[in-house]
Structures are given as structure tokens and as C-alpha cells.
């Protein structure tokens, strides 16, 4: 019988959301329409319309060595063209943000090729070839993986994911890369904090009910508590017990 991945345990809505995000057969919901040009502006790696700078000649011109692995693996568009490796980094508030660092890494690893995600406690970075990055970033920003208020696109100085939200519901950002204006969030600086010539609109913040129903984070005060998910507790206890006993005798 063919193996069907389960993606993760749990009966709660949080567990279900985690599985939906990870499962590449579930289409991510499109929530907003940030243009490619605007995404290039937020990323800040090149000017919109500028040709992609390259790190090496295109693979077709480079003369590849005779290698069985290269025959199996099709290069991504960015790799084929010899693009530089660039990044996007997110900080996700603990107050019911739709995604969170570990979840992002799992999701991206299941859904995209040619990426190098880096997971940290308060931020998650994903590196890949520049033109692939722009496509992936568009997915990460325009779908239900993103909320303009509780998720920040922050290349440096990311502090804020575990702080209380501001009065207007925005996550703290010491560089204030985005501001809430007339009900929509606008980026006024790129991800590293350089001011932008024009404001980039990333849409309305989602309301508290949507966030609670779509988050992939447990939170006992503002969301679903971890203890309320019996299956998750059972799973974590099993993992804990196996890891504890592993050095002695790895059998159940």
C-alpha cells in the first residue's frame, strides 16, 4: 500500500491548519494581490525592472560535468539562469499569526524546490535563487500564510514576535517597516529598513476571529490551548519518552 503522509498529529483547529499548510495537495487560499513589482520593492535585493544579477554563467553555457545526479535533478529557473542566492525573512507574532517558523520551514520544504530555509525561535528565513525567491515570496505574502498586522517581513532587527501587540493591532517593530493607514497596512521601508520611494500596500489586517480560526500556533490566552488537544499531548509524550529511553534501549 502506498504511503500517505499524515503531516502532523492533533484534532484541534490548529493541528488541522498545520496539516493544510504542509500538504502540497491543498491549494493555499489567495487572500490579497500584492504585485510582483511591490514584492521586489519589499525584498530590496534589486530595483524593479532591473535584470537579475548573476553569480555564475547560465548552466547551458557553463558546460556541466557528466554527473548522474545532474541528470536526475532538473534545475530550477533561477539555477538554470545562474541567479544570485537571496532571501526573505518573516517574524510571526505569537498572537495567532497564521504561520510560525517551524511551520513555515515544513510548509516550504513540502511545497517548493531549491530552497534553504533557516528556522529560528522568532524568525524564519528562506534562501534560494532570486527569481525563484520572488515567486515563492508572492505565494507566502498573497495567501493565507500571511497577515499584514501579525506577520512582519524583516530582514534584520526582527525583535517583536513575542511582545504584546500595539493598540492598533500591529506587531512591534523597532524599525516600523509597515504602518497601518486608512485600514490597510503599508510598507514604508524594505525588509532591512531602507526607506522606500513609494508605499507598498499589503492589504487589510485580518480580524481576530479569522486569525483564531486560521492560526498554526497554540496560545492558551488568545487562541486554542495546547492542552486542549489530547492527541498532540499523547504524541509529544511518546516522542519525549522515546527520546529519553533512546540511549538505553530504543524499543517501545
Amino acid at each position, binding site marked *: 500500500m502506498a504511503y500517505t503522509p499524515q503531516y502532523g498529529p492533533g484534532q484541534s483547529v490548529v493541528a488541522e491548519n498545520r496539516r493544510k499548510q504542509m500538504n502540497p495537495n491543498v491549494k493555499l487560499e489567495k487572500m490579497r494581490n500584492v504585485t510582483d513589482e511591490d514584492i521586489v520593492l519589499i525584498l530590496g535585493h534589486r530595483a524593479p525592472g532591473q535584470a537579475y544579477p548573476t553569480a555564475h554563467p547560465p548552466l547551458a553555457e557553463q558546460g556541466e560535468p557528466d554527473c548522474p545526479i545532474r541528470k536526475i535533478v532538473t534545475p530550477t529557473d533561477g539555477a538554470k539562469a545562474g541567479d544570485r542566492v537571496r532571501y526573505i525573512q518573516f517574524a510571526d507574532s505569537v498572537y495567532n499569526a497564521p504561520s510560525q517558523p517551524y511551520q513555515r520551514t515544513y510548509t516550504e520544504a513540502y511545497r517548493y524546490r531549491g530552497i534553504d530555509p533557516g528556522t529560528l525561535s522568532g524568525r524564519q528565513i528562506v534562501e534560494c535563487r532570486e527569481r525563484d525567491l520572488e515567486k515563492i515570496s508572492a505565494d507566502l505574502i498573497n495567501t493565507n500564510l500571511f497577515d499584514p498586522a501579525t506577520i512582519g517581513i524583516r530582514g534584520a532587527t526582527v525583535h517583536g514576535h513575542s511582545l504584546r501587540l500595539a493598540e492598533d493591532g500591529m506587531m512591534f517593530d523597532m524599525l516600523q517597516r509597515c504602518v497601518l493607514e486608512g485600514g490597510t497596512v503599508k510598507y514604508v521601508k524594505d525588509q*532591512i529598513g531602507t*526607506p522606500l520611494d513609494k508605499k507598498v500596500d499589503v492589504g487589510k489586517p485580518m480580524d481576530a476571529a479569522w486569525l483564531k480560526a486560521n492560526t498554526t500556533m497554540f496560545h492558551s490566552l488568545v487562541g486554542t490551548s495546547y492542552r486542549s488537544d489530547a492527541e498532540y499531548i499523547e504524541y509529544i509524550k511518546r516522542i519525549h519518552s522515546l527520546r529519553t529511553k533512546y540511549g538505553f534501549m530504543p524499543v517501545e
Partner: protein
Amino acid sequence: MADAEFPQCRIVTERLLKPETVEKILNKLAVIPGIRRIVINGPSIPQKVPYGPARGLDNPHSGKATIRVGETDVDLKVQVGTFLLELETRDIVSQVEEACKEVFTNFSFSIKEGKFMRSTPTQVDYAKYGPNANEIMLGLVDPKNKTGPTLLQGNR
């Protein structure tokens, strides 16, 4: 040593505050007689971008504002989320709570009595102020900071 007999209380709000709200609550607190010292706390908002490729660029931020408390201008350098108060008597706490209820209408807050300010000098305090430090300065401002505390005109 600071006199540890003065009661202290801490106000923590559910949300980090806008400068306008901070101005409103501080003006309410400033007219309550018997508050000796107030410390406002929160995550810092730097003047310049501190890290990364944009390091050294100016950092425009709406939280970095000058507010007016009584007749005095106060430069905010943090996004305020906590207030520490030192009081002359404990009965003022109810007046402080009343002031908070009037200002913090859209979100909750908690007010707690206890000991929150430093009463003995740290090594850094000692290096800055020497052995005869003014006790009222301890725990009030960061000793490494060049700007001192703001003095509000007394109301009696």
C-alpha cells in the same frame, strides 16, 4: 540606599501604547498628589538602524515622539507597555487605578502592588554615581544613558 518603605505599584497594559495614550495617562497621573517617581518601560526604539545592511540610517518611527506632561516635554524612546510608580502612601493606588480605567478603555490592564524599582546600587550605578549616589536616581534611568530623568513641577 533608597528608602524601601515607600509603596510601589506596576501598571501593565494589554497592548503597547501609542504616544498619545501615554501622554493622556501621564497627565492623569501627574495631577495625583503623592506619586514620587514614575518609570515608563517598553521595547526600545533606536534613533538609527542598529543592525544589518541599513545600519546607521535614520529610523523614522511614529512611537518616537515628544509628549507634553504637565508643563514639561518628555522624549519617548520606548514603546510604552509598563509603568512603575513609587507612591508616598498606599491609598493612592485606588486613584491611580481610577485614572487607568478612564484612559485604557479599549483594552485591559493590570495594576499590582509590590517592589519593582531597584533599591541598592549596581556596579554600573556605582561607576556612574560613586559611593554617595542620590537614592532617588537608583532604578529610575539607565545609568549608561546620557539623558537624566524628567522632573515634573510639583503640585503642592
